[in-house]
């Protein structure tokens, strides 16, 4: 039996209270966990894919360039494993903090609408050099919901984070958008928002558009811009990501 000290017990209680409030706030919304491939695929058993994205990022007054290589394998529609590995590729070259996740999904199909509930534990592998913007997260458990019709997509998720500095935080994602269909292909345009709130009161919010297009069943492309609109205790971040994915 693990015994918690008063300090840790109070931290857990504070985090649970905070998480409960955050969940109540976000629960009416619906959202998407930020997962490969571009938050879309593969939902079929045995499906897998790899995406690579370039990111131009500004943190405060510091610019950096990153390449992200993400992979996913879906065993059955209810379970998949994802891995994300960032590499810094400007003057400072090195690996960032890789993220491993095991999203568990409960899909539902309605006439004209489909969606899923997601429970996803994440592990942030601590191998990055702190000078290369190593991520502060250690582990995260996220809960998400998304639903999609022929023309619309809405999703939201909330993640409870334990950081390497011992603090707890809550991450919230929300996305709303429209699907675009052509004769031979399809895509979507979404507005995505991300809010992070730390136990010590620090917070940040970023929002921006996402454009995705399916060039073929194999090739997919995406462009994402996120603009910092609020931050206190976090360095304001502005980022532009663009990349391609292959899905099998």
């Amino acid at each position, binding site marked *: 039996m693990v015994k918690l000290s008063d300090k840790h017990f109070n931290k857990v209680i504070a985090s649970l209270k905070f998480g409960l409030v955050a969940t109540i706030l976000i629960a009416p919304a619906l959202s998407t966990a930020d997962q490969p491939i571009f938050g879309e695929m593969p*939902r*079929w*058993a045995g499906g897998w894919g790899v995406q690579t994205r370039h990111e131009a990022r500004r943190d405060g007054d510091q610019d950096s360039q990153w390449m992200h290589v993400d992979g996913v394998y879906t065993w059955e529609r209810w379970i998949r494993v994802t891995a994300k590995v960032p590499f810094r590729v400007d003057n400072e070259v090195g690996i960032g903090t890789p993220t491993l996740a095991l999203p568990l999904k409960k899909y539902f199909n*309605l006439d004209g*609408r*489909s969606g899923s509930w997601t429970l996803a534990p994440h592990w942030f592998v601590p191998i990055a050099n702190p000078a290369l913007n190593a991520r502060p997260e250690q582990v995260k458990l996220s809960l998400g919901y998304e639903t999609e*019709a022929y023309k619309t997509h809405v999703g939201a998720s909330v993640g409870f984070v334990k950081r390497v500095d011992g603090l707890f935080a809550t991450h919230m994602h929300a996305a709303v958008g429209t699907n675009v269909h052509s004769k031979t292909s399809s895509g979507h345009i979404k507005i995505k928002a991300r809010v992070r709130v730390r136990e010590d009161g620090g917070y940040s919010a970023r929002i921006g558009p996402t454009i995705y297009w399916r060039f073929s*069943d194999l090739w997919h492309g995406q462009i994402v811009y996120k603009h910092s609109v609020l931050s*206190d205790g976090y360095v304001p971040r502005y980022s532009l990501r663009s990349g391609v994915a292959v899905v099998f």
Partner: protein
Amino acid sequence: MKTLLSLTLLLSGALACATAAPQAKAPTKEERAAKVTDEQRIKSVQEELNTNPKAVAIFAKGMCCQSCAIGVRVHVASMNFVDTKRFNKGVKLNALTQVVTVALKEDAKVHPNAIKVAVQRAGYDPIEMYQLVDGQVERQALQ
């Protein structure tokens, strides 16, 4: 912190309205246009099978996103009675009607249970299979 709270509430409220709308209100013109009735689906199937008689069609409930539905093509195209030289690997996806049209090889016999499993493994619920019999669409339940 107040600003953050306001933003979160605003975002939650906006999304709640967006998601609650289809259940709480009458469908908008756009939603009516996007939602296909059974009659419209059968009409679309009839037209498709008239054009491609050596094929069957399946109503895959929930298949309203072409990117997510790639798995239908992956799983259905792997069956030996599918003519992968026609359509796109033998499979045509219609996200509006949620109908999958499967090209059949000459003299091949379709296996409804195999199609049912393939659609399920792709993440959707197969409801009915449609074939052209004497020029009319014949339904066969897959559930």
